[in-house]
């Protein structure tokens, strides 16, 4: 129960608010609990919990979510102090009704949406080779119309204020996403679909403004593609959702190197599993991302295994900070053998050099929200990676304490591969005392 609390202070406060004497008008039905808690003011705070999600509502001004009153109510309910039955008070009933209606709408929206490429940039499994020029002209028109509507919508949101987003955002975004899918701007639709999780955050207004600003920037950039240099135009088009065919990528110049497979992660999205495999070139230092997809339950491409090294030619998708690539041709792999023992730990950069690298990446593509880095000589702590001088880069707060990483390092410097994200690093792989790759 208390695991729902946003932090330790809230847990403690909830224990106080869980005192039965503070509560009146409590009641519970199988999927909802409600009650009024006497606070410091004259009018009691009205708290209500929809247990089916769970979702919470409270009339108090706390920015913590859920607040101590909601937690207290749940504690009270869990200890059997809330009588079963009764009619929800008018205010509780109203809130529930609104929630359920929104949920239904969302379900509908979900059902009509088509599966998207989870990476935003185009060429998901559903995208075929570029279609005929008539259809592609039609697509251009649709995207342009869709994005100008998006620009107006965003300006309208900012003009009138985003304070009410927690109430109206989910429904608005579902509708907006549907229109963007209709407009064939699947990349932007994907960015919109990722917005709801921001609402769980304490600092959601700032984060939401940041995302709105970057989506706006993308729409404006698309409107002005004609003025952009080629690589940047490719980036913008790919972020918007225009597909790039495999054939055209494979036809582009290739980069041969000895690639270390530095990490991978599978993510389930819609009805697909997306496998992201990150590579780093020994000679060039280039980073690459190889994506593959399979329907849930089917076997994914397993040709690139973390810890192995492969001599291959990669063909990169075009863009101003190119990362995604296809393996065009392999010339041989060296799995971990006794001879290749030392060879299996990829060279890592110094931690203090990471910010400049990321700055360069963002200079090319400001919408980048993921980039692989291999950092050498770092000492992991509970919430950061540090170099031996104590310079630290924070870990992503949602990753939790990286216990396995801590266990491998034991306070000693190690080489770590991590995914840079705007909110912090997500550790992918660490090389242990015998230089064996340990997936995290």
């Amino acid at each position, binding site marked *: 129960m208390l695991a729902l609390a946003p932090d330790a202070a809230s847990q403690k406060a909830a224990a106080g608010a869980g005192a039965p004497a503070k509560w009146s008008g409590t009641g519970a039905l199988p999927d909802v609990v409600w009650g009024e808690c006497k606070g410091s003011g004259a009018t009691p705070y009205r708290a209500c919990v929809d247990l089916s999600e769970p979702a919470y509502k409270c009339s108090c001004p706390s920015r913590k979510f859920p607040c101590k009153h909601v937690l207290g109510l749940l504690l009270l309910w869990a200890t059997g102090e809330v009588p079963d039955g009764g009619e929800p008070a008018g205010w509780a009933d109203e809130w529930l009704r609104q929630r359920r209606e929104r949920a239904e709408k969302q379900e509908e929206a979900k059902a009509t949406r088509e599966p998207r490429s989870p990476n935003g940039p185009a060429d998901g499994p559903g995208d075929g080779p570029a279609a005929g020029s008539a259809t592609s002209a039609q697509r251009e028109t649709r995207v342009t119309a869709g994005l100008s509507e998006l620009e107006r919508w*965003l*300006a*309208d*949101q*900012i*003009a*009138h*204020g985003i*304070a009410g987003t927690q109430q109206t955002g989910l429904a608005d975004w579902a509708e907006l996403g549907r229109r963007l899918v209709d407009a064939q701007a699947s990349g932007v639709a994907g960015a919109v679909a990722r917005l709801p999780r921001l609402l769980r955050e304490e*600092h959601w*207004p*700032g*984060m939401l*403004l*940041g995302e*709105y*600003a*970057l989506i*706006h*920037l993308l729409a*404006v950039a698309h409107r*002005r593609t004609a*003025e*952009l240099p080629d690589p*940047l135009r490719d980036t913008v088009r790919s972020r918007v959702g225009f597909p790039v065919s495999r054939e055209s990528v494979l036809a582009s110049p290739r980069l041969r190197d000895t690639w270390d497979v530095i990490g991978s992660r599978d993510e389930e999205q819609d009805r697909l599993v997306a496998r992201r495999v990150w590579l780093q070139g020994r000679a060039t230092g280039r980073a690459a991302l190889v994506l593959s997809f399979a329907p849930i339950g089917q076997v994914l491409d397993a040709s690139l295994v973390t810890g192995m090294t492969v001599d291959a030619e990669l063909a990169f998708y075009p863009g*101003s900070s190119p990362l995604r690539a296809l393996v065009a041709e392999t010339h041989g792999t060296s799995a971990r053998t006794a001879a290749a023992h030392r060879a299996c730990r990829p060279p890592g950069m110094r*931690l*203090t050099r*990471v*910010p*400049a690298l*990321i*700055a*360069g990446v*963002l*200079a*090319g593509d*400001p919408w980048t929200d993921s980039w692989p880095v291999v950092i050498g000589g770092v000492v992991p*702590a*509970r919430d950061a990676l*540090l*170099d*031996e001088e*104590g*310079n*630290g*880069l924070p870990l992503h707060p949602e990753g939790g*304490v990286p*216990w*396995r990483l*801590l*266990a*491998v390092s*034991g*306070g*000693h410097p190690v080489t770590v591969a991590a995914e840079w994200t*705007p909110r912090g690093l997500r550790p992918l792989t660490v090389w*242990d005392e*015998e230089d*064996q790759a340990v997936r995290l």
Partner: protein
Amino acid sequence: MKTPTVNTPTADPAAPNAVVPTGEAASAPAEDASWEELVSAALVGADRRSVPAVRLLEDAAVQVTRARAGRRPHAGRLPGPAAEETRPLASRAAGDRLARMLGGEQARLVPEWLETAATAGVRVPAHLIPGLLDLGARDRSIRPHLGPLAGARGRWLAELNPAWAYVLEEAVLPRAEGETPEAGETWEFGTRGDRRAYFAALRAAAPLRARELLEEGWAKETPEDRAAFVGLLGDGLSMEDEPFLEAALDDRRREVRQAAADLLTRLPESRLAGRMTERAARFLTRNGGKLVAEPPKACDSTMERDGVRPGPPAGMAKRGWWLQQVLARTPLSFWPAHFGLSPEEVIGLKIGDWAREVWMGWTRAVILQRDAAWARVLFEAEPLTDLLSVLPPEEQSARAALLVAREPMDGKMIMTLGGVARPWGTHLARAVLKTIVETSGMRPWDAGELIRLAGERLDPALHAHVERLGVTELAATLRFRHDMLKELS
């Protein structure tokens, strides 16, 4: 994301407007508007602040990208390094196998892996330690192995995670036969686990010296430590310990009193044994071919001091509970002498009321006093698993084999077999395999639990033989264990 902050203006290559013309307002970026001001304007609405919405979005895009690109390392606190390991790492193959087992393959065999590896003197690969410590948090029985296996790294992690603090109580070094560790430092400053390991080793080597060492600092030990150390006196127990243990019956902590009473029960010459014998002779008398039980009417303070617990478990009559406890603490050697009968004859006597309590008392006495002769006699009459634990391993197997041969294979039998230590001897193995082959043909669902148990307990060298018998599941488990033990040897 924490509220983005622009750390330093030197992050210029990152400013997005260097690459992307940010539209209408790009010519006059409002550099002075702070991020907080932008957010607050966005919350209430740009209109209310009389700022063009598009301009606000563009300013925000510049700021958010600049913050992302300009983020500098912060000053963090380095964790202190873990101590050097003293044990070698388990082989790569052994570590990989443990990883697969922790992932669910043959998970029932994890305790055997841990026990074998702890004895072999190796430690586990560091990345498996968190998973093992989580396992130990739920399952106490594996904790003693985790101390040495997780080593210095395990302790270092336990300092960071309170859920794993239990490992700090375990000894790092397993006790080696006949080895007496360096005195002094360990005893004075060691962790709880190390002190216990040291004390146990000293007790094995020099029982008297160990007890004297304990007596010296007795008053300063915590109640938990007092109880644990008294328990460790069981090794090398003699009448020399009697005065100390008798005094411990007056300890403030119940666990200490219980542990002392349990040990005194094993010394027939002790004062406690004498008091118990005197009580038992009153409560259980012989009348010709019958035994008459007359349980005590009250649990007085002297009984309580001798370890009799006044409150019975749920569903048990008080008087029967007291009777049972008195019998459990009465030296079993008393009865044959008292009645002039052999143990077989004693248990052959008819008992009227309280028969169940009398038998439970004797069974408990066998376990407390580790009396093998009585264990055999009672097991013949009623094959209880607990009785087997008192017998040497080969005899456990032999007795269980006889039982398998003559009794049906049911849930009770499987429970009894569960008490027979690994590895099962030849006779038991043969009897169990015969049963498995017979039942798996006719009632495969019944054979399942027996196959699982046999997989854990049979000698893994039998895997080829079992394969030929056609019991593939069992053969697979045994081959798995065979390979597993080879990797750890």
